[in-house]
């Protein structure tokens, strides 16, 4: 075993893992917020995430098509993409809630779950249909913005690109803003009240439906931002791209304690790091016997272990007792 090599790549793997972790954290917020308020898993969230990625790539391709992409400052473009992705995904999430979940609110809990799975399939194929008619393409590639690919060399072998920094900074900013919104504002208080007890909240003059829509809007917007960042970081997207990150982010939400916003962040980071470390190190540590292909098995085994000892997740599940 090459110990020097193991140590040499450590910082790079840490960076890789953090980027992936922040991505999962942003997506996980959508799952955890909806669960916190409605106690239901919005399985369509992975497609809401992908919708953001597609809006981003369409805008970029549109800008490039008209030839203005290179003349605009890259961070302005980036901000535009993020805002557009957030708006589109947020609105999509609200629409989905209005059409597919609200009519089922009184129904047994499995019913909206099935509805969510249906919406997920519907959105996947709607995006696929649209893209095949519009661009005759299945895979779409984010055009490269050269300024975002500049790399800072920390050492000979360790470096970090501007876009990776953008992902981390953007994720941190959004998580911080969300934290302020939920804990420091009146609206946040209202959302928390609805999560606590819908009937009582409505007696206090809180418009429950509006707060639920708002929850979907915020969760969806975070997902959309994650979609744009995902596209910028990994460049290739297709209508089914969301499935795996969606499942992972859902796992991250459970790991952190579903319904718990800081928990989702932490779960995302833990899962991202576990995945990066197992993918990079497994084959080196086992002499090639277990390769990177086993990364998910390794990451999820650790996850099961954590959940055995902390069944409510790292930071504890936020579930109210029902009378």
């Amino acid at each position: 075993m090459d110990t020097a090599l193991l140590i040499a790549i450590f910082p790079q793997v840490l960076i890789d893992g953090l980027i992936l972790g922040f991505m999962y954290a942003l997506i996980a917020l959508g799952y955890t917020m909806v669960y916190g308020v409605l106690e239901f898993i919005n399985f369509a969230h992975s497609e809401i995430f992908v919708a953001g990625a597609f809006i981003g790539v369409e805008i970029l391709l549109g800008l490039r098509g008209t030839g203005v992409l290179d003349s605009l400052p890259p961070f302005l473009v980036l901000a535009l993409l993020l805002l557009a992705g957030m708006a589109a995904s947020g609105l999509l999430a609200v629409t989905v809630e209005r059409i597919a979940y609200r009519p089922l609110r009184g129904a047994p809990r499995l019913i909206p779950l099935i509805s969510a799975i249906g919406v997920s399939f519907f959105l996947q194929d709607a995006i696929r249909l649209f893209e095949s008619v519009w661009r005759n393409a299945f895979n779409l590639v984010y055009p490269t913005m050269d300024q975002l690919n500049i790399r800072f060399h920390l050492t000979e072998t360790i470096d970090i690109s501007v876009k990776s920094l953008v992902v981390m900074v953007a994720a941190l900013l959004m998580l911080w803003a969300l934290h302020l919104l939920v804990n420091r504002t009146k609206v946040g208080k209202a959302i928390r009240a609805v999560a606590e007890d819908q009937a009582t909240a409505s007696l206090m003059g809180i418009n429950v439906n509006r707060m639920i829509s708002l929850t979907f809007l915020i969760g969806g917007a975070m997902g959309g931002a994650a979609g744009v960042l995902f596209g910028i970081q990994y460049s290739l997207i297709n209508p089914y791209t969301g499935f795996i990150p969606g499942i992972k982010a859902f796992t991250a939400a459970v790991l952190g304690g579903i319904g718990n916003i800081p928990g989702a962040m932490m779960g995302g980071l833990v899962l991202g790091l576990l995945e990066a470390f197992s993918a990079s190190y497994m084959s080196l540590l086992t002499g090639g016997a277990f390769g990177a292909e086993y990364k998910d098995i390794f990451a999820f085994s650790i996850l099961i272990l954590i959940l055995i000892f902390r069944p409510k997740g790292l930071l504890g599940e936020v579930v109210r007792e029902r009378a």
Partner: protein
Amino acid sequence: MEHRSSWRLVVVALAVAGLVFPAMALAGAAKGTIKIATQSPLSGGQAALGEGIKLGAQLAIDQLKGPIEKLGFKVELVPYDDQAKPDVGVANAKNIIADKDILLVVGHLNSGVAIPSSEVYKDDNLAMISPANTNPVVTDRNLPNVNRVCGRDDIQGVVGAEFAKDLKVKTAYVIHDKTTYGQGVAEFFRDHAKKIGIEVVGFEGTEEKSNFDPIITPIKAKNPDLIYFGGIYDQAAPFFKQAREKGVKSKFLGPDGMESTDLVKIGGKAVVGMHYTTVAGPVTQYPKAKKYATDFKEKFKKDPEPFSAQAYDSAAMGLKAIEAAVKAAGGKIPTRGAVAAEVRKLKYAGLTGTIEFDAKGDPKKATYFVLQVVSEDPAKFGDNKLVKRLDIAAPPLKK
């Protein structure tokens, strides 16, 4: 009013059709329809190649169905979408077997789909001619109905390793996609590379499609002279792109799975200058394919993808075999077994060369190319530079 006039139109159209085509309609009705199925991914990440296979077969049928129609049969193409998934391919295969009009399958794109599907065709001895499956197992099962018009991975991997030697590569890192095809060719590359003195510093499989960071980091640290990707462009291209973006300077090499315009559409600058081995050279390599390329463009408004010409040849050979089998059956619809037997007897001068199958269904001699990507413009993919061209006989069946 509108309804009435559209009805009138339909009646007139039917009348015209009745006047113009009565002979054809009667002939078709008299003896029935012969169908040729294609199986290839028409949706998903590999649809570009799969669609090319369907269209190649379509063009061959449109241009060459005359002799069978003269015998009194209608000839139809039925395209199936195997989605590059073994389970979907097998399910389609069962539908194909159930449709007794289908006498030939042209397909698949992926060896991992072709192998289980052909087990189903075998049950009814339905002939399959593959334009693109390179895994040795496809023909090494010695099935009487399975054939291919292209080369094999046990040779392609060796050609790749020999070429790596030409590039003066000392260390190589091998990545594969864990499919029958990708892992297979990667292993043949690895084994031969070791044999000829190239040090293989890593061998890794992954099903990842988007985030290659954790795989690239150890590669970058080991800094190999060459990275070989045993797999298909929809996965290899983003991998190469991310590797270059992360500052990996190694040379890139891959098998025929790289062969699609989508490689450069996705990979962009990162894949320019990389090499790949293939069993389906560019159309310019085949002197007889010139007219085919213009016909293809005229009919489908796009350039043929790699393997389209192979699909054309596969379908054309199938038509020849069916024609012979119909004649042998005294002008009746032949059995599937008879068609499969006729396929093995053919010696056919196709677009991609003269094709003749050996006892297990391999072409007696196949052509292998090494090409270099010259431009990030997808329209120039056909201009990729030919570095090497080798004609190699298929190995005999190992007992």
